[in-house]
Structures are given as C-alpha cells and as structure tokens.
C-alpha cells in the first residue's frame, strides 16, 4: 500500500465512532485479566512446583530444583536403600483411565437411543424432554451424589429389593459404585450433543436408505451414525475428559480409597503434604487431557466432522 492510498482512506475510521454492535476491546480487559489470574497463573505455578522439593517443615515447597516428584510416580525408595518399580500410581492412572473409558462407553450406549428418540418427537415434546435431561444441573452435584449413595447403599431401596429376592448385594464403596456415579453425572453431557446432531438429521435420508434396499440396522449404521458422528465425538470428549479428572464419585461412592488420580492429588495437598508430587500428578493429568484432545482433533480432521473442542 502506498502513502497516497493511506492518505485518501476515509478519516472516519480513525475516530472513536463505532458502528452499532461494535465494542471497544478495552471492555474485555477485566475478563482477560481474571482468566490469566485464575487459569494461566495456577497452571504455571503447578508446572514450576512440580520440579521443586517438599518443604522441610509444614506445607509448601522448597526452592530446590529436582525431578524427584516425577521419579516418585514410578520409583519407590525402600528403607534398606534399594529402589523398586512402584506400580501403585501407574495402577491409579490406569484405574482412572478404565473408569472413564467404561463411563464413556456406557453413557454412549445409553444416550444414542434416547437422543434419537427425543429428536424424532414433536417440537413441544422435544423442548420438554431436553429440559428434563438438563434438570439434574439445577441441583448441586454434592447433593445428587449423596442421594445416589443412599439409593445404592446396602440398606437402601435397591439393596432392599435384592435382599427380598434373597440375592447378595454390595456395591457401595467399590469401583462399581464409582463408575455408577460417573455414569449418572456425565449422562446428560453425552445425550445433549448427540441430540443436537440428531435433531438436525434429515430423516428423508433414512427413508432414502430404506428405499435403496437398506434394512433398519444398516440405515442406522451407514446413514444415521455418520450424520450424528460430530455429536458423538463431542459427547465422548465432554464425558471422558472431565471423568478422567473427577474426584467426588470415587471419594464419596468408591469409599475414598484413593482410586482415581484426582483423589491422590487431593491427598498430596492434604494429609501427605507433598505439594511437588501433587503438582507432578496434576501436570500428568493435564498432559493426558491435552493428548486426548489432540487425538480427537486428529480423528475429526480425518473424517472432516465439525466438532468444536478448543
């Protein structure tokens, strides 16, 4: 662009006047500062602390650079001076991964039929049913989890039915209870994105499928499923990622036996007073999340689905 062109450009653009709907970027500043303070700074601190040592007395960290926290993840120093491979934390990470994977698969299986069913109702019924799915969000997750604990407790109504039938029943404070809790909490996060995709599905495509000789299941597999795939991928991401870092279910329903990553992290900042190790575990969890997001990005880039994650 030449100097002459700049000079002839409309001077109105250089004034403070803005078109309707435009806002000054300055208005976004408080939010930007808030987000930096609450997200960027803590993550940065977590990363830094994970390379430091535990304080000699009390809580906190000592500014003494070490990879000890990461070593602690896999290696155990025995009292006799020898070292051994420590499987405890690897097992917890594996537990977190399997619980989240089971939760994702079960919520997906439960959500597909209900989402399709809601999507095929009349509009007024659809709105009501979507509201019903989101209803649990109106109640504190803590209260809901307490409620679930009463329900599945050995002396609860479910246990009562099993006792009447003369069957043995014990779920509470087992991994099964944790997984039930996860499924319960994350089910709406799977239903809603799948429903959003299914609602946009043009059912004349399914009719065209039948017309061309495809049976029910084939139509679902080859025509419906690819069309609602963006919703399914969103649902998987919205369930798997938070499930991986969930704390409450294993704490309250799983018996607090520290069977998921988040419980161990919480423990390091509490009783164990090992901040660097808690930070190292947090960094690991963040790393796993980023890895999973990247996998989903790779998958969607290949299939060409429009999924908004980050």
């Amino acid at each position: 662009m030449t100097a002459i062109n700049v000079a002839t450009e409309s001077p109105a653009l250089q004034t403070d006047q803005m078109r309707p709907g435009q806002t000054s970027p300055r208005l976004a500043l408080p939010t930007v500062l808030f987000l930096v303070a609450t997200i960027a700074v803590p993550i940065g601190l977590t990363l830094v602390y994970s390379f430091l040592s535990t304080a000699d007395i009390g809580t906190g960290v000592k500014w003494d650079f070490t990879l000890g926290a990461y070593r602690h993840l896999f290696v155990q120093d025995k009292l006799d001076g020898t070292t051994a491979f420590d499987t405890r934390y690897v097992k917890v990470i594996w537990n977190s991964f399997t619980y989240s994977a089971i939760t994702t698969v079960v919520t997906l299986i439960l959500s597909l039929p209900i989402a399709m069913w809601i999507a095929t109702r009349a509009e007024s019924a659809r709105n009501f049913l979507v509201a019903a799915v989101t209803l649990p969000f109106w109640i504190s997750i803590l209260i809901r989890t307490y409620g679930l604990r009463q329900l599945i407790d050995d002396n609860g109504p479910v246990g009562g039915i099993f006792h009447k039938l003369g069957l043995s029943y014990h779920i509470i404070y087992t991994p099964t209870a944790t997984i039930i809790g996860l499924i319960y909490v994350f089910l709406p996060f799977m239903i809603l994105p799948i429903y959003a995709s299914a609602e946009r599905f043009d059912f004349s495509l399914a009719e065209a499928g039948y017309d061309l000789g495809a049976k029910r299941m084939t139509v679902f597999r080859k025509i419906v499923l690819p069309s609602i795939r963006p919703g399914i991928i969103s649902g998987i991401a919205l369930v798997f990622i938070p499930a991986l870092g969930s704390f409450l279910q294993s704490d309250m329903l799983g018996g607090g036996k520290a069977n998921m990553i988040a419980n161990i992290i919480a423990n390091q900042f509490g009783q164990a007073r090992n901040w660097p190790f808690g930070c190292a575990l947090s960094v690991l969890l963040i790393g796993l999340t980023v890895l999973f997001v990247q996998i989903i990005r790779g998958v969607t880039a290949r299939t060409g689905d429009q999924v908004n994650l980050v």
Partner: protein
Amino acid sequence: MSSSYLAISNIKKTFNTPEGGTVHALDDVSLDIQSGEFFVMLGPSGCGKTTLLRSIAGLEYPDSGTITLDGQRIDDIPAYNRPVNTVFQSYALFPHMTVAQNIAFGLEMEKLGKAEITTRVGLALEQVKLEGYEKRRSSQLSGGQAQRVALARALAKKPKVLLLDEPLSALDLKLRRGMQIELKRLQQETGITFVFVTHDQEEAMSMGDRIAVFNSGKVVQLDTPREIYRRPVNSFVADFIGETNLLDGVANADGITLPGGGILLRSQIAEDCTIPDSGSVTVAIRPEDLEITDAHAAVRGTVRDSIFTGDTVRIHVTVTPDVEVAVSLPSYGARIPDRGETVGLSPSGNSARTVAS
C-alpha cells in the same frame, strides 16, 4: 399397453390432525398404471398424491386396499425389498458420501460385485450426463446436479417402477424445462415405468402419457393430457388444469343465458356435453377459445386491462360487476381492443363446455 402393470386397488389412508380430527388422505383410490408408461399424479397440495406415491414406495402403509406390481402383491413388503425406487423432493443425497458412493449404496445393498457396481455407477452417471462427477460430495453440487445424482441413484437399481416426488419443484424455471425434456427422454430410453407426482399442471401436461388428477384424496379424472384439457369432468379440473372462465348460466330452449344476458347457442357447446332443458348450469370456456365478435356475442363487456405477455395478449373483460372474463389473443395479427372499449365475445366453433360444478 393393455394389461395393468401397477394396480392400486381401493387404497384408503386417514391421518389424525393435531386438532383431533381425521383427514382422508386417500379415500378409496384405485388406479391401473401400465408398463412403460409416464404416469403423472397431479393435484393441489394435500390432495393425497404424495401419500399414494409413498404407499407405493413402502414409506407409508395404507389402512386398507392392495397394491400389485407385475402380478405380485407388494403392499405388505417392506420398502427395502420392493422393486421400486424413489427420487425424493429434497433429493435426500447422503451428505457424507461422494456422488459415486451415493449411487453405489443401493447396489451394495443388493450385494453386487465391486466390478459390476463400478460399471453400473458409471452407466447411471452417463445416463444423467454427469460423467466425471464421481468424487464430488453432494455439498459441491448445484441443485440441478444434485437432482441428476438422485435420479442416477434410483435408476442404477433398475427399478420396475421409478417414483418421482415433485423432483423438479426446487429448480428454477429454465432448469426445470430442461429437466422435463430430459426425464421424458430417460423414460423413453430406459422403458422404465415412471410415476411422477407434481402440483404443476403445465409440467404434468408436458410430461405425462396419462394424468390422474387428485382432489381431496380422490382421483377426479384419469386421462391423457389432451382429454383432460379439452374435456374436464368438472369445474375443479377445468379450473386446475390450464385456465378457464367458469360462468354460471341458465339453460333454456335457445341455449344457455350467460351473465349479462347474452345467449350461448347450443351449437357453440361441444356435442358430448349434456345440456339440461332448463335450470342452472356451469359453462367453461378457455381464454384462448374466445374470439372478439361484432355480430352475435355470447357475452359482452368492457375491456378492463390488456397485458402483453409476448406470444399472447391477455385481456380482462368486465361483463357484470362480479363477472370478469379472461381472453387470450395472439399477439400478432389479431386486433387488440383498447381499454374501456366495449367488446362482444363468443367461443370459437363449439369449444364451450358445460361442466359439473
């Protein structure tokens, strides 16, 4: 052409309305469609034509009645096993598949070999003149191209009957005219029986070997385009197909007294029409059948306006305050009366008809 190929017998279908009532979408409809015929089902929206087409396809199940194709009852066969295929109004192309995959889908369902599928996809694309579009996605097609792919997808299955549900309604006029000609050519080349649903009477006339005119769930008239145009059975058909001046008259010894007092002579009415000796009767005269005449005029009135449309000039003549007559005159050669001029009008020859109301 004599024996019936697709026989529709006594089909009934009712729907419940949101208000709690019932609608007879199809009220005891029977039709015989012949092999290799271009059959058009024509009617205003909600007349039942699409419901019948969907019943033939198996996408809708009639309450009662039978559908027989080539000697075999098909009304109890599920859609995926019926030897018929549909071209949908919205085309319903699978968005996640390429053009070739769309066309191959129906052939894969038949478990045909890869080589045969490739050959038939190529052939189908050739038929609709879309060679080279195999790899395109449906989002990369224009409306006319999407239409052709939908057609190719259905034709590739070699159906006994091809069902077309208002397939051209989304295209612009010029494209629609082109596709009309092409559909007619395809039908003649393939010899496949076409059942074509439309609400556009001009489209029906230009394409159909025979037309079934639907109204309120019933077939009102079934005949060739020429017969339906020249001999409508009632005022609905006369009015729906082409344009018609419907005039309420009173029969008497001389003929029929029309609004304004003019008399339509019995010799001006087609011979096959029944004219009562007395009483009220509805007369139908096409705008292009009316001539300006100075001598004996059946109706007389004042020219309200004249519109030049290119090939014709349409004039509207006010006969009485509530009766107006449309006249279509050739734009070249005929004398065009001025606005405000009083003219006499008579049907040419015996082109006027009496119709049941």
